């Protein structure tokens, strides 16, 4: 079991990005959900909101702590994971899949390539 999928890109603040066309799906990494513990609340951005790389876009809250989620890319929010409402523990159970947080139509798809690849992200965890 790899907890750092090869097909994703990563930030040093523990978000992951999956780019499909010009749509970037964003979530938090396995490492991040494990560090946070039981997630009980997710505050997602409004659809249509303009987000800027590195700026706060969402919040993920566990029993013990609240954590800002930073937009890994610049663009516009086009979708959010409404299925998490009342089922926030999905972020713990499947952080790289069903636990995704929001989707951004990216201003510049090339920006995603500047993020960390799996090996570089793994190196930040040591």
């Amino acid at each position, binding site marked *: 079991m790899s907890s750092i999928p090869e097909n994703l890109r990563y930030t040093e603040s523990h978000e992951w990005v999956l780019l499909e066309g010009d749509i970037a799906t964003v979530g938090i990494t396995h490492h991040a959900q494990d560090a946070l*513990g*039981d997630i009980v*609340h997710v505050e997602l951005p409004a659809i249509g909101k303009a987000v800027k790389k590195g700026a706060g876009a969402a919040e993920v809250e566990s*029993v*013990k702590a609240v954590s800002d989620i930073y937009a890994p890319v610049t663009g516009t929010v086009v979708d959010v994971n409404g299925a998490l409402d009342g089922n926030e523990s999905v972020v713990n159970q499947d952080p790289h899949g069903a636990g995704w947080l929001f989707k951004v139509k990216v201003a510049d798809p090339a920006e995603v390539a500047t993020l960390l690849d799996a090996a570089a992200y793994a190196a930040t965890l040591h």
Partner: protein
Amino acid sequence: MSIRRTPFHAFHKEAGARMIDFGGWDMPVQYTGIIEEHLATRARVGLFDVSHMGEVRFRGPHAMAAVQHLVTNDVSKLADGQAMYTAMCNEHGGIVDDLIVYRFGAEEILICVNAANRAKDYAWMVSHNPFGAEITNESDQWGQLAIQGRHAEALIQTLTPVKLAAIKNYWFAVGTVAGVEGCILARTGYTGEDGFEIFLPAGAADILWDAVHTAGAPFGLANIGLGARDTLRLEMKYSLYGNDITDDTTPLEAGLGWVTKLEKGDFIGRDPLVKQRDAGVPRRLVGLVVDGRIARPHNPIVSDGVVVGEVTSGSRGPSIEQNVAIAYVPTNLAKLGTKLQVDVRGKLADATVSKTPFYTRPY
């Protein structure tokens, strides 16, 4: 000061606990997850290492008078083998610590103090001892395990000849546990469940840890960290020293009037507390149910757009499945049902002053 370890420290690491610094102690915050551990305690039985708590012994003909002078509750009501929750106040009526007092005899009292207050409390007790009681800090001699949950009595009964059913709530007995002599079995706790706190000689930690786990397996015993200890006590609105009660809050403000016996005779802090009672207590520690967001300590409480108080504790209550908080609010806003708001990181969440404890055990 270097970080301290309880006699069970190695077992926590071995059990895969995530450790944190809690008031200078390297303690397990969680093993498998806070919610899972919380629910295991409510449904079955949980084991908590609370060896970081301190123990101070009072002895001699003046032991009772010395304790009576130090604490707010009336320890003259205690029988041998009985325990009592109390506050200990400073000259301003602020809370030095909250304690459990155990009466072993007319001339022998044991007091259990909070971990972070060990040194402060002992110094306070020794420097406020006009009667000349013999006061000994035994904190390093004792380990302490809390076993909490509906199966606690049955589990512990397999390890001791002491008849546990005869020990009522807030009573205790001294006896042998897992062959270890001189343990104190007290029917007390910080979770809202039935259960015991067992004081054991620190050198017997290895024996007790293994014996309790072996005996606990058929009962579904789970190791519980400080994270779930906090959510369990929060659902009961039990105060956490340093958060909900401090040197600057009085027991009357904190809802501890029931352990503050102003008519028992003189004690440290009595005069300002009588004044506060007569003038009207200006603020109250209330329980809040918070909509949507989780309130955290120091979040402002807002009423009609004005900041009127502050959250002292807040979390999700895993058993009640609501977000709850404890906060100081002005007395006129402390009535059940009062609608308030909490400023959670710049966003206002609706909150309602609610009946506490938030959780009531079903057995």
